């Protein structure tokens, strides 16, 4: 049965004018989406390189000054080696490099910046990670490959499978088939699997073509992306299989499948999102602004108390000259640090709420294959909100280290030397996300597909046919 089925399906598909032309349209759409992704990637890279170069220039300058001074020469810009200058003006650039897969899924990368200057004068509470952007563009989103796969490909699947069984039923051929000693549902499943494989092969070809066009090298992440796509396809084929078995008319099947598409791709994600915002509402940022100001004001009014308190907690910084020797900068650095300490519970409230929202989305997202796919694809691409939360957390913790590193210099009132520049902390974006989340999404999609297929197989195909003919 299998080989006959395969031959039959291949013949049908290759003669199906619609299938061939839609595949061609799909090629064009994917290539265009790939091009958009590539351009986005290139811009992101170029912007980052430019920012890195500008930062390098600043760092080279202090290197040069330090080198001159270490040789015992004088330099007009010697003040640049003061800890305040290095900590605040020179600062350091925190960057989040783009991954190759981000060419396929732009995700949140149009919303956030990927290079941010770390300076000891910045308050973490108001540090902005948003990129300058036209909000209309953010509202509409991007035409990237993830969009084509999430929204359009399911419709192609629906168009080519909605009547696989009902067509036979309506033309009366199904009864002829059923009179043979075969399980009609198994026969139908085979047709679905064959169509699934055909589309998977075509998409593999299209995706490979796109990947080559955008200059992607073969990698494990790319393979995972392919697997995710196959799993997503499988889900929609399985849904269509089940609808085919339950449905009696092609027209009704089409309406049911399209309604499911609207529900799963369009409505569910927005409902889950809205629910997450309602169940775990974010505290108000605008209220936070005034809280910050209040805290700042209190600290600045009591500069002496702040310094005292700070030194009580950091006795290692107390020098023999006595507290009175300390001036503006010591007070400034101490109050900055105390402020971060005082505000950190407030800021953590935001992070906690966001983490809860993310958990809610992760669990309810299981209801929508579109969410699973989008989530997995952006996570692979390093452009999911989880990645950006990681980046933000990395930046925040590095900022604290950065300030702490300069504290002894500030309180010692000493300038940095050439050797000190080598010892400056370096920012590096570390992601511990890995691909485990993506593998979970792939597994969920596959398990759901298999369950639906088993359910369809378990239904008595012929029995049902009899009852249908009786009615």
């Amino acid at each position, binding site marked *: 049965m299998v080989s006959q089925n395969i031959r039959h399906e291949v013949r049908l598909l290759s003669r199906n004018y619609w299938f061939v032309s839609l595949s061609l349209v799909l090629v064009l759409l994917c290539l265009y989406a790939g091009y958009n992704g590539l351009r986005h990637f290139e811009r992101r890279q170029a912007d980052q390189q430019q920012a890195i170069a500008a930062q390098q220039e600043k760092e080279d300058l202090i290197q040069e000054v330090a080198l001159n001074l270490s040789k015992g020469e004088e330099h007009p810009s010697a003040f640049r080696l003061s800890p305040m200058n290095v900590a605040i003006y020179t600062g350091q650039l925190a960057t989040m490099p783009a991954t190759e897969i981000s060419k396929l899924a732009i995700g949140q990368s149009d919303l956030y910046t990927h290079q941010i200057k770390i300076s000891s004068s910045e308050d973490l509470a108001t540090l902005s990670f948003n990129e300058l952007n036209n909000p209309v563009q953010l509202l509409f989103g991007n035409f990237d490959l993830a969009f084509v796969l999430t929204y359009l490909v399911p419709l192609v699947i629906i168009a080519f499978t909605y009547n696989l069984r009902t067509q036979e039923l309506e033309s009366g051929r199904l009864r002829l088939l059923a009179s043979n000693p075969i399980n009609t549902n198994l026969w139908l499943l085979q047709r679905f699997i064959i169509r699934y494989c055909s589309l998977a092969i075509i998409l593999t070809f299209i995706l490979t073509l796109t990947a080559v066009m955008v200059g992607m090298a073969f990698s494990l992440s790319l393979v995972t992306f392919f697997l995710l796509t196959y799993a997503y396809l499988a889900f929609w084929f399985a849904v269509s299989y089940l609808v085919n078995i339950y449905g009696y008319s092609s027209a009704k099947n089409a309406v049911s499948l399209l309604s499911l598409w609207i529900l799963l791709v369009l409505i569910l994600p927005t409902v889950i999102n809205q629910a997450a915002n309602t169940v775990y509402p974010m505290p108000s940022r605008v209220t936070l602004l005034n809280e910050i100001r209040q805290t700042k004001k209190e600290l600045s009014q009591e500069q002496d108390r702040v310094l005292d308190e700070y030194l009580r907690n950091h006795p290692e910084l107390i020098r023999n000259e006595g507290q009175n020797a300390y001036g503006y900068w010591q007070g400034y650095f101490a109050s900055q640090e105390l402020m971060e300490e005082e505000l950190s519970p407030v800021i953590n409230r935001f992070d906690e709420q966001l983490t809860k929202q*993310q958990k809610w989305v992760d669990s309810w997202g299981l209801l929508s294959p579109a969410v699973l796919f989008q989530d997995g694809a952006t996570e692979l691409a390093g452009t999911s909100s989880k990645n950006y939360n990681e980046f933000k957390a990395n930046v925040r913790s590095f900022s604290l280290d950065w300030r702490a590193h300069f504290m002894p210099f500030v309180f010692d009132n000493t300038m940095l030397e050439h050797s000190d520049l080598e010892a400056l902390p370096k920012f590096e974006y570390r992601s511990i996300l890995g691909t485990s989340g993506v593998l979970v999404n792939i597994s969920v999609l596959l398990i759901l597909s298999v369950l639906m297929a088993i359910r369809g197989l378990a239904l008595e195909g012929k029995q049902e046919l009899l009852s249908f003919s009786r009615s």
Partner: protein
Amino acid sequence: MMVFRVAKKEILEMTRSGQFKWMLGIVVALSVVAIYISHVHWQEKNLQRELAQEDARSLWLAQGATNPHNAAHYGTYAFKPQFPLSLIDPGVEKFTGVSIFLEAHSRNEADNVAAADQTGLSRFGDLTPDFILLFIVPLMIIALGHQSVTKEKEQGTLRIIKTQGISNQQLILGKWLGNYAPVAILTTIIFILAALFIRQIDWKFVATMWLVYLAYFAIVNSITLVISSFLNNSGISLVILLAIWIVSCLAVPKTASSFTNEKHPYPTRQEFDAAVAEDKKKGLDGHDPWSEASKKLEQETLQAYEVSKLEDLPFNFDAFRMQKGEEHETAIYFKHNEKLKEVHQKQTQVYRSLAFLSPFLPTRFLSMSLASTDYSTHWNFADAAEKHRVEMQRVLNTNFAENSKLGEWSYKADASLLSEVPEFNFEAPDFGEVMDANKSNLLILTAWLLGSFALLFFASTRV
């Protein structure tokens, strides 16, 4: 009248179908939830902003007697008010900041972008009334109307109807009305329901927005009937209409945004800041008396007042220099923001010229504009905040210059100075301005409306 009889029959048939009841039930339920949730969020945010605005003002005034320049550095916040119609269409609000810090020497960007505090799912959209109106209602029109004519052909009833002495135009118009009436009623109910929740309602805006959506749905309805008239098979009609829906509501906006950004890209924040810093370095820094620009200003001022020493000037030169520096910096920010605005205007131009590709685009832009949640209103807000900041600096620096001597940094102005700085107040553009700014969108929407009717007329001759 034949037309009304056909329409009546269509509606009657619809009310008898289970599919229609289900669909209507779902859309109504979604609308009610969307309006209610939007209302709750709206009130919450409104309260937060009003409180924050009050707090910011009282913190500003609580500084008491202080040095004017210290007060300038302490600064204050400008908050964007929540506009009433944002309950129906929050537009780009989620992606624009709501607060701007007003301080000496720098123009800050609007901050606190709501989308940054949400998960990636927020990019799928929010369950708000505009989502239902823009995306779901057109789908409902398609679901109801795709088989309107094809069904008659499939069942062979078309010939019977024609024997009753009805013209093709009358039949199609009747079907158009029959399909449109429930949608128009639903839209009206959504608007009335939303209006019940809106405070300080301006009927001109609400009524225009209602008309815009009615026009949008009329276009979708005409296209649906055109396709249904041309084809003989309901299934194919549905697939084609859905393809049109996806292209118009999802693909075209996304393509437009990718294309626009490609053509006129924004600089990154890093680039923008660097360019501003570069220009600032070249000119006068109010805090740096040793720079070349400061020395030049010194000479010019001494000459103008015909005195030899700064101490002999009738005002505090430090504060005067501060104000001059401020003016220089303001000019730089103005220049760079104008450049940015130019990019924004070019981008808007591209969006507008692409609006003829899909009736979704002019509707989307008009709706946001009427709700004062579009990007232009945000620009207006940013400009108003900057104007306020400049005025604030002028008041403070003038007081400093006139009431203190050179080097008298310990000078403290009376607390009443702080209340001389006016409270920040931002008004949304009025109706005339909104209509004026959206002339091309209105034009394109009208063209779509007329075009789709013309097509419908043509299609009716081919039934």
